[in-house]
């Protein structure tokens, strides 16, 4: 009896501590959210007022009125969607090749591709910058999208997934004289929707949030992604004249991603839990 009772109390204490930690965790977001509706002039004097009036929407209208923010959102959408679609396509094809076909040297080729997982972005950005400059690809969608396509993780994920699909399904189709391509598009792809969602979400988030490559490749402000564009507007931070404006910017950029996250949370969680641990 007794250990059970202490166990239950222990559980309550642990949950209580975790909830307290969660409150600390969201506090910065809530504080920024509340202050984003305050006039800049007030915030120049004090920031310890939360719910008391006055309120204003001016900070948000300033964002919409004065910057290239919609252009940056559009750029981010094109880059993130484009990169995601292409990564899914290339990784599925290569995954099928590695999982289900045989040719001389396949094992070595697979190892060669996986070795790429060890390469840091920093080791390739300088040569990539030169190469893209020679090709005239900077400040273009292609320039922002292409480097993300050389990611071995997707190939690894797809190969592992396709290997686990029972061969019988495929063999029935091949006996009916279906081509490899037909088998791939009609049998394998429809069976792989969960892993496509997983890889899609992971790729989309990393493309949407990338900072280093857009910073190097996009030098004209109308080619910035949202991540880079917002960073570029924060240069005169030291004076912090427009605190409320900065707060509104943080909320403006965080809110859509957080809402999407709340909506797709279960898929994202499954994606993370399912992919990174064998």
């Amino acid at each position, binding site marked *: 009896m007794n250990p059970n009772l202490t166990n239950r109390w222990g559980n309550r204490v642990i949950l209580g501590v975790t909830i307290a930690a969660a409150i600390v965790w*969201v506090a910065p977001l809530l504080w920024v959210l509340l202050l984003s509706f305050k006039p800049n002039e007030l915030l120049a004097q004090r920031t310890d007022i939360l719910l008391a009036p006055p309120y204003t929407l001016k900070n948000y209208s300033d964002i919409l009125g004065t910057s290239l923010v919609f252009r940056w959102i559009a750029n981010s959408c094109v880059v993130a969607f484009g990169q995601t679609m292409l990564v899914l396509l290339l*990784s599925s094809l290569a995954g099928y090749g590695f999982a289900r076909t045989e*040719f001389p040297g396949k094992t070595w080729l697979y190892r060669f591709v996986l070795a790429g997982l060890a390469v840091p972005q*920093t080791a390739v950005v300088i*040569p990539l910058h*030169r190469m893209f400059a020679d090709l005239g690809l900077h400040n273009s969608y292609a320039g922002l999208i292409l480097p993300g396509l050389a990611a071995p993780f997707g190939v690894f994920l797809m190969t592992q997934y396709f290997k686990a699909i029972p061969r019988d399904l495929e063999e029935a189709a091949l006996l009916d004289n279906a081509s490899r391509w037909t088998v791939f598009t009609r049998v394998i792809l429809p069976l792989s929707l969960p892993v496509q969602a997983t890889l899609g979400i992971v790729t989309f988030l990393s493309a949407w949030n990338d*900072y280093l490559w857009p910073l190097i490749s996009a030098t004209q402000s109308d080619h910035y992604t949202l991540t880079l564009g917002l960073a570029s507007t924060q240069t005169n931070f030291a004076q912090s004249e427009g605190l409320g404006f900065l707060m509104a910017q943080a909320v403006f950029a965080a809110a859509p991603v957080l809402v999407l996250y709340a909506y797709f*949370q279960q898929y994202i969680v499954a994606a*993370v839990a399912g992919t*990174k641990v064998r």
Partner: protein
Amino acid sequence: MMRDLPSSVQAKPRLGTSTGWIGLLFIAPFLLCYLALLVWPLLNGFWLSFHAIDLLSNMGRWVGVTNFIDLLQDEMFVRSALNSLLFAALCTPVMVITGLALALALNRPGRTTAILRGIFFGAGVLSVTIVTLIWRLVLLPERGLLANAMHGMGMAAVAPLNHEWLALPAVALATVWWGIGMPMMLFLASLQQIPHDVYEAAALDNTSRWRSFRHITLPAIRHGVILVAVTQMIAQLQVFGQVQLLTQGGPNNSTRSLVMFVYEAMFEQWQLGYAAAGAQALFLLMLAGMSLQGWLERRAGKAQA
């Protein structure tokens, strides 16, 4: 076993094992991207690091290992490399311990725990720009959330980002806030692979929480722990956006990181070969980290046997 025989000898040939080169056609599109956008740049970067090249003139001349010798004598490089190592050393244990603690606390079904998991993972979907913006507002001298909280408790407010010794830990704090979700999820995934009856047996023996953690949980998830520690170390060694946006490397270079050094050597001093050599140094550090993982895995495997 069947596969090793020539197909003519096999009694019942498996389809898909003797299709010649068609498999390569499936792999070719990715392979072209991989060779052009990763393998070639990597080799090119290696080659560049033995040259003195100016970004503007684009003319290179072979200088051998001069860049690497210069790096070791460059106070800024050494400082940046040490900062990156220190940053990884600060973040990794916190990520592992906090991530594991959260995973243990939240490893049960129910709506409350699901919401809490969502909260801790949520910040991870934000971009580095937003995270640093939020944390600059939190850490603002006098008017930040931290300053307000400290005033509220009757303490004198500090401004960690302006303080030489506190700046790097403050960046690490923001990074843990941002990135704790991934370690937590990885630990949850490994915790859920432990069979439940082991704990039931322990509960019958009145085993304490701590003892069952030490003797059941920890041994069962050690691969997860190694995985999280090494992936975090590798990720944090590459810290760039947070320091560039939060502190610009200051105060007094106390937060200048290795990637930031490479970026500045390239785009502010236009010393291409020198920057490439700095990038190779980072690559070496990461390879060392990964060999550490291999070594730990083998040791863990031996301990089990």
